[in-house]
């Protein structure tokens, strides 16, 4: 599969500090998560791909185009949703997105059509005619997403897309991101601190630490590898049950939040678990595959 983004010994220096220290990676997924502690260089990497920073060494290629000398043409293919506020307060939502669309190359009539389409898609109704300065945070986030996708980019970069959104708006944002992901010919880069969001939306994950690649994982492969890891929630006193489970070879242990983490060996009968539970007078209230594999991966990468 052709690489969407290739980082070739990418080095970026700001002032006197070297922020990105020779990054080397080849990202092929349709949706790539970008993770890392604060200061690891995620924003710097994104800003470099956009051409806001010039590499001080090495280079990066997006869709085969070199960021050093084809930055402007590249930007025609990229849509960017910044983390911080990014709007012109006096302009109405539609006008702002129209401006963005036209700057990306759309003819005026198409730009207006497309701006309205995108507003419909993100769920902003008649608020689109009001100045952005009057919008709530949720509306502003949606406007940022709108301007990022209006010109149909092949690569959409989302920096903390769910920042500050209340639970319903977060759901809506994730749903939108997944729909964009499902579209043919569109790739995503999502930088977020919320591992759940990344897990739901991404195929591959690049973890940065101190300006270097700490880990690069394929989530699908991880899910397959972790398919035998279960999490149990039990009622009644379960100490003896857990011990018995462990003795059966199920590698059972209490995990942080009062639940039991267990690895089911291949071929092990689920029925036996229930049998054991009945014997120890324990009710299994919940048994499902662990959803926090990304969290484990992240913590391991940070060591």
């Amino acid at each position, binding site marked *: 599969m052709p690489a969407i983004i290739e980082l070739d010994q990418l080095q970026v220096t700001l002032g006197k500090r070297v922020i990105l220290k020779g990054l080397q990676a080849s990202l092929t997924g349709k949706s790539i998560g970008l*993770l*890392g*502690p*604060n*200061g690891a260089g995620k924003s710097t990497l994104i800003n470099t791909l956009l051409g806001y920073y010039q590499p001080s060494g090495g280079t990066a290629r997006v869709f085969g185009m070199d960021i050093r000398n084809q930055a402007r043409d590249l930007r025609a293919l990229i849509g960017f949703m910044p983390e911080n506020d990014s709007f012109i307060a006096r302009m109405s939502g539609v006008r702002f997105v129209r401006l963005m669309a036209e700057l990306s190359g759309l003819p005026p009539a198409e730009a207006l059509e497309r701006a309205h389409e995108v507003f419909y898609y*993100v*769920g*902003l109704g008649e*608020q689109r005619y009001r100045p952005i300065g009057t919008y*709530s*945070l*949720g*509306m502003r986030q*949606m406007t940022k997403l709108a301007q990022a996708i209006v010109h149909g980019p092949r690569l959409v970069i989302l920096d903390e897309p769910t*920042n*500050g*959104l*209340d*639970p*319903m*708006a*977060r*759901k*809506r944002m994730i749903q939108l991101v997944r729909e964009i992901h499902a579209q043919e010919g569109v790739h995503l880069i999502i930088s977020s*601190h*919320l*591992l*759940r969001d990344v897990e739901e939306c991404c195929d591959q994950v690049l973890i940065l630490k101190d300006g270097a690649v700490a880990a690069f994982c394929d989530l699908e492969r991880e899910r397959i590898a972790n398919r035998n890891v279960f999490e149990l*929630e039990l*009622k009644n006193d379960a100490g003896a049950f857990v011990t018995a489970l462990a003795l059966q070879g199920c590698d059972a242990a209490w995990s942080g*939040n009062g639940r039991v983490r267990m690895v089911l060996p291949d071929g092990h*009968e*689920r*029925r036996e678990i*229930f*049998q054991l*539970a*009945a014997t120890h007078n324990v*009710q*299994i*209230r*919940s*048994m*499902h*595959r662990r959803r926090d594999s990304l*969290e484990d991966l*992240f*913590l391991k990468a*940070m060591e």
Partner: protein
Amino acid sequence: MSDRHPPAAGHPNHDNPSTAAALESGSRPPVPESPAPAVPSTQSPVSPNTKAIVFNNVSRFYGDVLGVNGVNIVVEPGITSLVGPNGSGKTTLMNMMSGLIFPSQGSVSVLGVSPRDPERLFPLLGYCTQFDSFPRGVTGFQFVHTTLLFHGLSGKEAEERAWEAIERVKLSDAANRRVAAYSKGMRQRIKLAQAVAHRPRVLILDEPLNGLDPMARAETIALFRALAAEGLFVIVSSHILHEVDLISDRVVLINQGYIVAEGDIRGVRSEVKDQPMQILVQCDRPRALAQELFPTETIVEARLLPDEIGVLFKTTDADRFYNAFQQIVLATGIQIDVVRPVDDDADSVYQYLIGQPGAVS
């Protein structure tokens, strides 16, 4: 808008020595009191006020605009999460708890202290705001240190406590750099340090995990747990519901100025009576499973999932359901992949009580 109401007949007058004494001892203050009739709090009236934060029929309006209306809750020690859409009144509640604004109606009492008594209240409180606003040019250390000086600590003690707090949030090496140069996560942590430095008993945190990377989140959550274990009231507002599930002892759901629910999430869920509990089962023979369960009279509905990967049960009695379920699994040998309640968490409760997906507000 003025927050200083003249002590009208109806508001507890803390200049009145008998009222003050009554507040001190924890019993209900004498008659010239809040204009609303003494509505019993959700807790039994025997519980003394000095051990909890009590909202007694509190309303707050900003001119015509509603902040909160008719709030009656009692907050206990431990981690309490405030959940609700933006603009629902969370910040209003927090501001009233911390004495920054006063109720239009009703009374608030924090560990027996009225928020109209700032000298006694502020030492008890630590407040971590949602938005960043720092004095220009200060370093991290100066920020925390100066706050401690405001609390009346001596210079040396303030220094020690400041470093202690800064170490607790793991910002020791960055403490002497200017806050303007901090990343978002670092600013969040320095605010936290400032809130805990004077060892308050009540910690009010407005979206404290915002902008923190996963490790810092886990560390901050651990810090909250540690503080809660020390007996503090940790009141957190958050939008990340699965974290709310993870860390809270109790949850308060608020929507459009009204308290919609409060208590332990599981408890809240079981009280939402008109919605039977939903339990998802993924197995190899969903139809057979459903067939076996119906006669046991523990389910009210069974819905086959698409592609027959499983079945969604609805039950009004979880306990009996699980027992029946377990027996059937043992008896029939159906291979179970997944069994879990799908609406036993903050997310589902939120959806039932507050959410309307699709609209952007």
